[in-house]
């Protein structure tokens, strides 16, 4: 085990992890998850928001066990190797809203960076607009980083603070299994407080144990290798440092290979699963997301992994994503396969203004 961990922490780690995670993501589609959405950190967070009734979009409600697995896998991995380190205090409120707007951007595009690459690996060419947007968002973030952007330092916390998110992950699994229905609708039928979609993407899922198992594995791999779909481009473009980037290449190639082998590769622009063809808002949604993730230091998958390691600032970012998902559906910001939501474009512009202001104003002179 120690030897495997050392291998994962070396230069080849992200490549190995990317390959395994990409293959598993494509396999999860075969096992029941929505098309090109074997793992989508933003979509799954949105489904969880729906599962808790934070929005009532009936087709996207499910407590996705993969994400609980991310947190718990990372927690166990970090805990067992002495890397569990509770910390927080780096501009938590700004991180909350970076998470909020990262989610708004992701739901205008219909996917986080993980899903952008998975859509590509399934032959959904509209993902190219999203990946172009992601790249531009990261480049804007890099410009701010060169100018001294910083959300400030976090400080070490008491160890108990770091257990909150792993405990919440356990609670999510308990609620998933128990699925309490003690609410009553107007006609007296049981409803809520936990909601599961009866149709649509939210009703498509692999079995709980498989989803949780994959999540735990991804949590461990991500914790050890620091696999990050935003850090990969950032480090490549900013520091000419490619080892994370190879992880994303392996992720796309492995997902493509499994998609192809399973007959899930359907090249084209039209009629792709849970995607729309509006070039501009595919692009700008991801500019917003890419910028927000870069300012917060990592992609949504990485934020989940870090929250398991005890990073309270990442946990706050995730809570921002969760609330952002609720607002995105309640305020009709989220896109659908028919195209952008009625207020998605305006919300994207507001989000971009917020992120640009954060990038410009949060500059720190470090000695």
């Amino acid at each position, binding site marked *: 085990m120690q030897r495997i961990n050392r291998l994962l922490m070396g230069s080849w780690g992200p490549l190995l992890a990317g390959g395994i995670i990409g293959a598993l993501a494509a396999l999860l589609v075969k096992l029941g998850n929505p098309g090109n959405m074997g793992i989508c950190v933003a979509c799954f967070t949105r489904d969880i928001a729906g599962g808790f009734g934070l929005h009532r979009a009936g087709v996207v409600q499910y407590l996705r066990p993969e994400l609980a697995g991310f947190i718990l896998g990372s927690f166990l991995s970090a805990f067992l190797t002495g890397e569990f380190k509770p910390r927080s205090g780096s501009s938590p409120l700004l991180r909350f809203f970076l998470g909020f707007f990262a989610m708004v951007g992701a739901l205008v595009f219909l996917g986080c960076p993980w899903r952008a690459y998975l859509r590509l690996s399934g032959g959904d060419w509209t993902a190219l607009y999203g990946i172009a947007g992601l790249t531009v968002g990261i480049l804007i973030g890099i410009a701010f980083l060169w100018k001294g952007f910083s959300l400030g330092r976090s400080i070490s916390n008491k160890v108990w603070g770091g257990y909150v998110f792993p405990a919440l992950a356990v609670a999510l699994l308990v609620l998933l299994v128990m699925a309490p229905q003690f609410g009553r609708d107007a006609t007296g039928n049981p409803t809520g407080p936990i909601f599961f979609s009866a149709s649509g993407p939210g009703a498509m899922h692999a079995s709980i144990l498989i989803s949780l198992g994959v999540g735990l594995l991804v949590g461990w791999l991500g914790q050890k290798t*620091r696999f990050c779909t935003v850090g990969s481009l950032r480090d490549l473009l900013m520091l000419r440092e490619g080892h994370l980037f190879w992880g994303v290449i392996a992720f796309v190639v492995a997902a493509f290979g499994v998609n192809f082998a399973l007959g899930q590769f359907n090249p084209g622009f039209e009629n792709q699963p849970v995607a729309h063809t509006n070039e501009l808002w595919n692009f700008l949604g991801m500019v917003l997301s890419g910028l927000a993730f870069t300012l917060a230091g990592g992609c949504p998958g990485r934020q989940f992994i870090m929250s398991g390691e005890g990073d309270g600032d990442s946990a706050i970012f995730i809570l921002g994503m969760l609330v952002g998902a609720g607002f995105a559906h309640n305020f009709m910001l989220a896109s659908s396969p028919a195209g952008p939501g009625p207020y998605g474009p305006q919300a994207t512009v507001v989000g971009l203004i917020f992120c640009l202001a954060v990038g410009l104003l949060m500059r720190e002179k470090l000695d």
Partner: protein
Amino acid sequence: MSEYKVVDARGLSCPQPVLEAKKALETVSGDETVQILVDTVTSRENVLRFGTSKGWKGSWKEGKSGEFEILFTK
């Protein structure tokens, strides 16, 4: 006499510890020692990878309360 430069990158998110290390390593002359303080294994590995890729010899030791001191010499 050789000089000694200290950079405190504790508590900073990615990629700031590497950027601080980059700034420090670019502003010192060859006979100086650069010490970089970080507080996560991720930052330690990232900073060491960056420094050694730029031709510095890197070593680290664990300080008090789980922090790490990285030393770069030419």
